[in-house]
């Protein structure tokens, strides 16, 4: 005979106990409750339970507690107000942080301790070394590494492909032996 199922009725009962129902909804739940024993006892139990939960309030800790609360909170607030950061608004803090970050970046990029670009330095040193070696011993044996026609090989990559173990130099002119005593 129930116009509303018990499951739906329970939801409406909770809603009624919590926020209250109005108009048509109230009539419908009242109709249901009139004929449903279990929902009536559900409403009674729920009402009692919510009432006892809501009534379970801790005791007020007393005026002394609230006085101490106010005094210590005021002290903490004053401390915050007096701290150097608190004197500035957040906009100023953000601006300060931005300027600081820019300074750090500028110092890192333009700092006097900057070494020359490593790749350039390495290449220059390598060219100088190869020049010296070529002057002393002639060109390196694996000459195809200098093949410009290959196009993509640079001096650096060509040099790095040479196995130092297999690297031999063919002197292309004779070096006269010098007598040691001339140096002394």
């Amino acid at each position, binding site marked *: 005979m129930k116009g509303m199922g018990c499951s739906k009725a329970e*939801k409406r009962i*909770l*809603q009624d106990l*919590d926020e209250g129902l109005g108009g048509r909804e109230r009539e419908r739940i009242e109709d249901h409750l009139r004929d449903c024993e279990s929902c009536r006892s559900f409403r009674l*139990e*729920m009402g009692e*339970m*919510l009432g*006892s*939960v*809501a009534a*379970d*309030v*801790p*005791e*007020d*800790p007393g005026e002394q*507690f*609230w006085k*101490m*609360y*106010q005094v*210590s*909170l005021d002290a*903490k*607030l004053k401390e*915050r107000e007096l701290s150097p950061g*608190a004197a500035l*608004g*957040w906009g100023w803090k953000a601006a300060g942080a931005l300027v600081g970050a820019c300074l750090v970046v500028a110092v890192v990029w333009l700092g006097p301790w900057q070494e020359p670009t490593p790749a350039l330095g390495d290449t220059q040193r390598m060219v100088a070394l190869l020049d010296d070696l070529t002057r002393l011993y002639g060109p390196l044996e694996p000459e195809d590494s200098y093949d410009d026609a290959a196009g993509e090989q640079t001096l650096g990559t060509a040099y790095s492909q040479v196995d130092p173990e297999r690297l031999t130099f063919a002197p292309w002119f004779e070096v006269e032996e010098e007598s040691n005593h001339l140096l002394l």
Partner: protein
Amino acid sequence: MDAMKDAQLVKEFRKGDREAFSELVRRHSRPLTMMLIRILKDEEEAKDISQTAFLKAFEGLPRFMMASSFKTWLYSIAINAAKDQLRKRRPVTSLDTYESLPDGAESPGTRLDEARKLRMMREAMESLPEKQRATLQLRLYEEMDYKEIAGILGGTAGGARGNFFQAVRSLKGMLEQLR
């Protein structure tokens, strides 16, 4: 200043009126701390967390976007801190911290029975999932609407209503088991 709404006080404070913040403290400190005492069952911890919430509000108000009310924002700061505190001190401490036998003219037997029921109810409350328990507390004790609760705990008003009903049902089920 008494008649001013929270939002107006927030605006005044942002203009530099320190007294406006004091008024916000006067309005919200007691209910907020009482809620924390109810959650934490420790007056000193509740006091510390309540004060920390006000300090955070004091520092954060210049950036506060007013997307929610000041009260919702303040309570969400406090509840998050309380949750952290509870997690730190798990397993749950004694439930008897503010327990006392119910007063009244009933016989000692009835009073003991009431005390037993109260204890069971607190135990059941403690066993509820965190969000359901918080929803129940904000709804029953702070009498907040579901929109406010959602603003504090996250989610939607409908979700908060669902959590409340679920909490009530779970509580009933647990109490039946404990009996």
